[in-house]
């Protein structure tokens, strides 16, 4: 039996042994992301609910279809950052400290660029309509605003992990902090793709 074997093994401390399956922290992050993803699902569902309840055109009240170019660039940037993050994570899994630090840095910069474009986009959009214009405006600003808040949290997480990576706090065997930040970042990326499809593409159908 495993348990018997284990009892024998514990007579010596086995602190260095790497965990064999997912750790507590990993599960905790999975559940956090799950509940946050549900939050965005509910927001987007509300958007579609209101859209299907609206008998006039969509967007309503003579608001033009959303412009695609900037949003497309933003989504591309953030998606790219997700792949870079994945490279950084793969790097540290193989013990490559430089790949980790560079990858985290590049992810951070791409995220920052996205945030800049998001602010620009918001300013441009606000010339046409604001959250106070109508329910469409409220939904668009609430959804993108909620995403921006999560993005900023993601950037803070990245900065934190980067600071620790700088001092070589992570190893091939133990880098839960990197895994958790990465998982959160993928979530931020996926939400942006969902937002792009929902808020930018579907009004054109």
């Amino acid at each position, binding site marked *: 039996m*495993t*348990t018997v074997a*284990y*009892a024998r093994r*514990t*007579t010596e*401390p*086995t*602190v260095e*042994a790497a*965990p*064999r*399956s*997912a*750790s*507590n*922290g990993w*599960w*905790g992050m999975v*559940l*956090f992301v*799950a*509940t*946050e993803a*549900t*939050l965005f*699902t*509910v*927001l987007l569902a*509300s958007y579609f*609910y*209101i859209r299907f*309840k*609206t008998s006039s055109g969509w967007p*309503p*009240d003579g608001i033009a279809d959303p412009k695609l170019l900037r949003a497309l660039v933003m989504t591309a940037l953030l998606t790219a950052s997700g792949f870079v993050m994945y490279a950084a994570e793969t790097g540290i899994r193989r013990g490559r400290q430089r790949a980790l630090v560079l990858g985290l840095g590049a992810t951070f910069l791409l995220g920052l660029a996205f945030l800049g474009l998001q602010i620009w986009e918001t300013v441009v959009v606000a010339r046409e309509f604001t*959250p*106070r214009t*109508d*329910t*469409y*405006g*409220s*939904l668009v*600003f*609430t959804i993108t605003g909620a995403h921006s808040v999560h993005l900023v949290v993601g950037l*803070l997480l990245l900065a*934190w992990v980067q600071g*620790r990576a700088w001092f070589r*706090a*992570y190893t091939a065997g*133990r880098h*839960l*902090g990197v895994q958790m930040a990465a998982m959160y970042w993928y979530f931020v990326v996926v939400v942006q793709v969902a937002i792009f499809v929902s808020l930018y593409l579907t009004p054109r159908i």
Partner: protein
Amino acid sequence: MEAHVERLEKVWAEPAGIVSFLTSVDHKRIGIRYLFTAFAFFIAAGIEAMVMRAQLARPGERLVSPETYDQLFSLHGTTMIFLFVTPMLSGFGNYCVPLMIGARDMAFPRLNALSYWVFLSSGLFIYASVPFGLAPNDGWFNYVPLSDKVFTPDKNIDFYTLGLIFITISTTAGAANFIVTIFKLRAPGMSINRMPLFCWAVLATSFAVIFALPSLTVANTMLELERNWGFHFFQPAHGGDPLLWQHLFWIFGHPDVYIIFLPAIGIVSSVVPVFSRRSIVGYEWLALATVLTGIVGFGVWVHHMFATGLPQISMTFFSAASFMIVIPSGIQIFAWLATMLTGRPVLKTPFLYVLGFVVVFVIGGLTGVMFAAVPFDQQATDSYFVVAHFHYVLFGGAVFPIFAGIHYWFPKMSGRMYHELAGQVSFWLVFVGFNLTFFPMHISGLLGMPRRVYTYPGGLGWDAYNLLSTIGSGVLAAGILVIALNVLWSLRRGPPALSDPWGGNTLEWSTSSPPPHFNFPVIPIVRSADPNWDVEDRRQDALRLERGELLLADGHQTLATTVLEGEAEDELHMPSESVWPFVLALSLSVVFFGLLMKLYGVAILGCILVAGAIAGWHRPQRELQDQ
């Protein structure tokens, strides 16, 4: 052996005094705090109910104004759901889950402390409205457009929306904690099909919380933005839809009924086998029924909206789903009855409360089936029949098991026995009082009495039923008073309890009463679903303690196991006391206070404090603890 235990005691000792009060991460202390705090809110909500019953005792009564009455029933519902039943069951979960699975603490002890402090802060936040006469006043489900700024211009609803967003943080963090604890910290050998049914219930509940609460958060955020920031979501004039609120609320609200109900039936499944003196009948069926209820609970929300003019097809679908959810409940009832009938029941207080639960819950279930039929629902909705139904389900389904749990685990938590006769007296008072209060409401409801009216004219045939209800509520309150006095008296005077006064089947009864800080001197190894009835296995535990095996006494250690099989995997170092959870909860209170008072500078300051508290919490320690 003595030396081993002494070493553990030194490692797990907590500092004394006020510092310890603010920094403790011991799941047992946190669990007991949850129970006491939630019970205090229960008393508050009970007083609100008593005032309402006094007002309704006879027609044309003028005890409270209509405005006050609105606040009373809104606060009563909100408190009972969010500040009593849910946290009360979190309290039992906190106390019992690690003990039942043979762990030394929750998976995230500091997050656990945070859950409690946030629960306390948000409860006080909501109740801070009372002295100003600004308590929530649009019912516990707070429908728009009544709750919009136009119709409720004061801060009543802001207390509600912000308070509920606040408490969601606590509930969600607690749920994630329960899931990881149950997945990862079970004693070696406790594969998922040997896990106590209470843990199954907590697990299903926690998943329901993870996926249901975001909807409540979104709804309340939208309402807050609409009320105070000029956004539009629910007003048709601005392209919104008031039904959006109802959908979002009940997508949360119906799963929440099961979030309340499932842990309570977990208590029932704990008590039934112990007092029937045999293993539970149909363990797998009960576990599956628990999970199934949690899942199907997400597909029935529209049955709260049958009277809102939705398309026939969607009502048919949700009506069918509502009938379907009767199946797992039926499975559970018959499994418990079979256990009782084939066992040798011992009629102690916890078991009496479980019997009371079965009777009351079946009645509530039957009226529930009536409501699943759309035509009946459309006739009886918003009448006292609904009030009768959901009190039978919620008081019967949750509060009777909670009272069973209070008596069942009292010896374990306090190390003393409660007074048995007083316990039985409390049961009969509660049982008779409950039925006397709520059964007449079925009739007054069918006679047409609408819910939420602050008074009514005489001569409509409602008078006698209302007077009966009011008398019944007095009997019920007396029963609850007996429980409270019994607990307080027994805490000081009760005779000392053995480690296993009931002959229990789960692991919490294998350690002393109350358990030491480290729960178990040696991590138990489990080979069945009734581990404490496996005498030989427990003897082996004692022998391993003699030999110092599986002791894990180098710091706050516990054992991680695999999710399904429960095979030993890794030794974990658990975080010890910390003041940061308390500081973080305080900082969050500053944020919500700022948002409430529209002092946005204060809110931003609060956010900075929150960031600081999180940073302090995660100051790099040994990387070991991260893992």
